[in-house]
Structure formats: C-alpha cells, structure tokens
C-alpha cells in the first residue's frame, strides 16, 4: 500500500483528499455537489474506485451518487450511457427511491404519541465486503435498505423495522436514524446496526431477522434505564480480526462487548467525559481504541476547550490523551459519529473531521496530528481508503 484517499462529507459538499504513504502533502478536490449535505461517502473494499455518496438537503430530498473512477466523476446510479432506458438518454431516477416495505406503520414521536414512519435521508452507506454491486443504506426514519445493482434500486430489509419493538422506537435529538452498519468479515450474513435512539441490533441471517443487542446498556434518561430498546447508541466499531468484540460510544458511556453484542460492560475508565460520538479501532491492534470526549449532551464541545483524541491500548478503561498538533485552547467544535476513520497503512493513520471544518490526520496512530484542511464546511463524515 502506498497512498490514501480520504472522503470528506460536509454540510456544503464533498471533498476527495489524496496523499502518498507519508500522509503529509495533500491534494484536495472538490467541492463535489456544492451546497448539498453529504452525510456519507464510502468506497467499496472490493473495487476501491467505486464510491457511493449520500447527497441530500431539506428542499429536494435524497439523491444517491456513485463514482466508478475514484471520485473524479459522479452520477446517480443507472445514468451511465449503457444503463439508460429513456431514448432521450436522460439520467434515471430510481436510485433515490427509498420506499418502506408494505404498510409503513408508526413509531413513537418525541411526545410518546404514534407517528408515521417517514423516509427523510440516507445517513450511512456500507458497501459489501465481497461484492462491489451490493451496498447497504441506513436511513432516517430508521430502516435498512440493500441494493444489489450498485445503487440503482433499493429494497428494504424490513425485518428490522418490523421487529416487535419497532413501534416503540423514538427519535433522538438528531432524528430517528440508522447511522452505523458493521458487517462481520468472517460471516457476511452477520450484521450489526445502531439506531438513535433505539439501540444496537444484530442479524445472523443477512437481514431477515434481527435481535436487540443492548443488554448491559444503562440510559438514565429512560423510564426503565436497562430496557431492551430505547438507548441512544452513537457509534459502534469492531476490528476485523476479532468480530466478536465490539466497542460502543453511547450517548453517555463507552462500552465493550466480547460476545458479539449479547452483553456489554462499561470501559469509560479515566476519560474526562464519557459522552461523545465517534469510536474507532486501530487497523492492526484490536485492543487499541479511539474516542473524542465531548463535555456533555447539553454542551457539544470538548472539555476545557481542548480538542483531545483519547486512545486506549488496553481495550478500554485506561485512556491517554493525544494532543500533539491539536488545538489545546479555545476549541469548541464537535466531532460527529461518522467523522472518524483509520487507514490500513503499516503505521496506522487516524483521521477525523470537526463541525468547525477541520480535518485532521495522524500518520502514527495518534501520536502526532496535522490538518489536511482547516476551512472545510462543517464535517459530517470522514472515510479513508488505502490504495496500492
């Protein structure tokens, strides 16, 4: 591996940043889709030049975009010349059609009353680990969709939303979103998803049936703090070599499971705050974990105005602050749940973006940080591809 490509989604467009293995000198291309909210951009592990992007805004709704040349050019899937149906050669429109399976039904609204399920946007795109034409989408209102034709058409995996607890799910402050999808690299039919504010769910049969995996989570804001569902899970992460071990950043609490999510225990340890959004695992060290503590749910900025990534080399509980190159005074940005990533280089690179528009990289596992760019629009997501 000799170079990396960082995919940055922001509130005003997408950016593609590339560098060689040193990860010091960056070329930035963009904005793509200027003015649109780019909730997530992610490349296929099977074909790295194939990249999927979620483009949306409050005026015109959801668009899915795809690049087959590493982010240089984009089009809504189904609009390449060989895929056109209309004799005029116009782009097709089905790739933005996300329709719930069957009768949509209701979930609970903020005030506890039934509210119709309404599609709003795609929060997260997760390409298959084995098939470049397969990609999953996590959407708001919370549901999971799958495309088998590289994003041209989408079908809901409705077993999740139609789980017996679905009618009791409620939105978090950011909406009722399915924001995280993890595929087990050793068993592609085993998938975890996380929903705010319903919790974590797992399927062992490719999405037909699902079970809540929230045992051990405690959420004091809930009438029943240890309920089966209703937890505001902000992010979950795993290392490919240990898929039974999961790490979670919850609304409050950093958690760990060693039985594929069947049970969780808290590993917040000495963190200055156990509230935060992203969590990720080192590419080569399954017990090295990264979080970015935020002061509280009411104050979404770093404690003491110091932007600090915290690293645990022991799988949690013992955390060290990583500050070299990060602002240590007057910093009041946030780091959102999909805005952290790690590369696969021998010396693992760690990346994150802030709501203040900075994207940082550490080419040495978190010891030293520098900015790829400091004046992007507010960053919604960061992904990285490690390329030959």
């Amino acid at each position, binding site marked *: 591996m000799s170079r990396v490509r960082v995919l940055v989604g922001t509130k005003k467009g997408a950016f593609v940043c590339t560098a060689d293995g040193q990860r010091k000198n960056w070329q930035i291309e963009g904005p793509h889709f200027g*003015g*649109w909210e780019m909730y997530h951009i992610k490349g296929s592990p099977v074909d790295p030049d194939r990249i999927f992007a979620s483009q949306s*805004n*409050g*005026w*015109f*709704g*959801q*668009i899915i975009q795809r690049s087959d040349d590493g982010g240089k050019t984009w089009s*809504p899937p189904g*609009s390449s010349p060989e895929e056109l149906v*209309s004799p*005029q050669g*116009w*782009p*097709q*429109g*089905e790739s*933005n*059609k*996300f*329709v719930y399976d069957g009768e949509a039904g209701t979930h609970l609204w903020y005030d506890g009353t039934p509210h119709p399920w309404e599609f709003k946007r795609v929060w997260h795109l997760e390409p298959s680990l084995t098939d470049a034409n397969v990609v999953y989408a996590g959407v708001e209102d919370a549901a999971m969709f799958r495309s088998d034709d590289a994003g041209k058409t989408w079908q809901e995996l409705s077993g999740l939303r139609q789980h017996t607890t679905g009618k009791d799910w409620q939105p978090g402050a950011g909406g009722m979103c399915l924001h995280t999808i993890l595929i087990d690299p050793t068993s592609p039919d085993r998938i975890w998803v996380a929903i705010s504010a319903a919790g974590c769910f797992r399927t062992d049969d490719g999405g037909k049936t699902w079970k809540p995996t929230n045992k051990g989570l405690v959420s004091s804001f809930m009438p029943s703090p240890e309920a089966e569902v209703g937890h505001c899970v902000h992010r979950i992460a795993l290392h490919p070599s240990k898929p039974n071990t999961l790490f979670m950043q919850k609304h409050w609490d950093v958690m760990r499971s060693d039985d594929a999510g069947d049970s969780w225990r808290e590993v917040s340890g000495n963190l200055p705050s156990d509230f935060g959004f992203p969590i990720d695992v080192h590419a080569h060290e399954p017990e090295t974990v990264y979080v970015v503590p935020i002061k509280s749910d009411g104050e979404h900025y770093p404690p003491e105005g110091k932007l600090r990534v915290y690293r645990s080399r022991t799988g949690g509980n013992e955390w060290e602050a990583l500050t070299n190159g990060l602002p240590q005074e007057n910093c009041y940005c946030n780091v959102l749940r999909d805005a952290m990533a790690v590369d696969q280089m021998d010396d693992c690179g760690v990346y994150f973006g802030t709501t203040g528009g900075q994207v940082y990289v550490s080419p040495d596992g978190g010891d030293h940080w520098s900015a790829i760019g400091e004046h992007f629009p507010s960053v919604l997501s960061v992904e990285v591809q490690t390329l030959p």
Partner: protein
Amino acid sequence: MIRVTLPFHLRNLAHVGNEVELRVDEPVCVRSTLDALEAQYPVLKGTIREHVSHKRRAFLRFFAAGEDISTESPDLPLPESIVAGREPFMVVGAIAGG
C-alpha cells in the same frame, strides 16, 4: 411547448439550463406538467414531489402567471399564458439563510 424554470440545484442535477421546454398532454395542469418533466428528466423524480404520494416537497413552491398556486389542486388547469408558452411555470425553492 410548456416552459418550466427550475431552482439552481435541480438544474445542476438534470444538467439543464435555467429553463426547460416540455410537451405536455392536455389538460395542462401542475400534475401533467410535472409528469412530463419527470418523464423527460427522470433524475428529478422524488425531488419536487414525494416518490409515492406525489405530495409537493415542503420547501418548494409553484408559481404561474405571478400567482402562488402551491396549495391549489394539482389538477387545476394552468393559466393560458403558461399553456401558450408566453411565460414559464416556475418551481421555486424557499429562501433560507445559513
């Protein structure tokens, strides 16, 4: 031909200029005009009205002959000046700062 103006982002999405011209079957109304627009530019499906319900998206408005007709029936015939092509049917995005 019916002339239709589109907001900036939809023009970019459909790869068209400020205004498009459409052949619209009679009766010429909002529904038949949007049907023709989406048939010619399928990428716009779901961006002006919802995919299944065909409900107008909340932050878009429709103007014809200087009047806001967003809340009128989509089957109401459009004014003669639109049908004759003397002025465009306008799809307008709500103004918002930030």
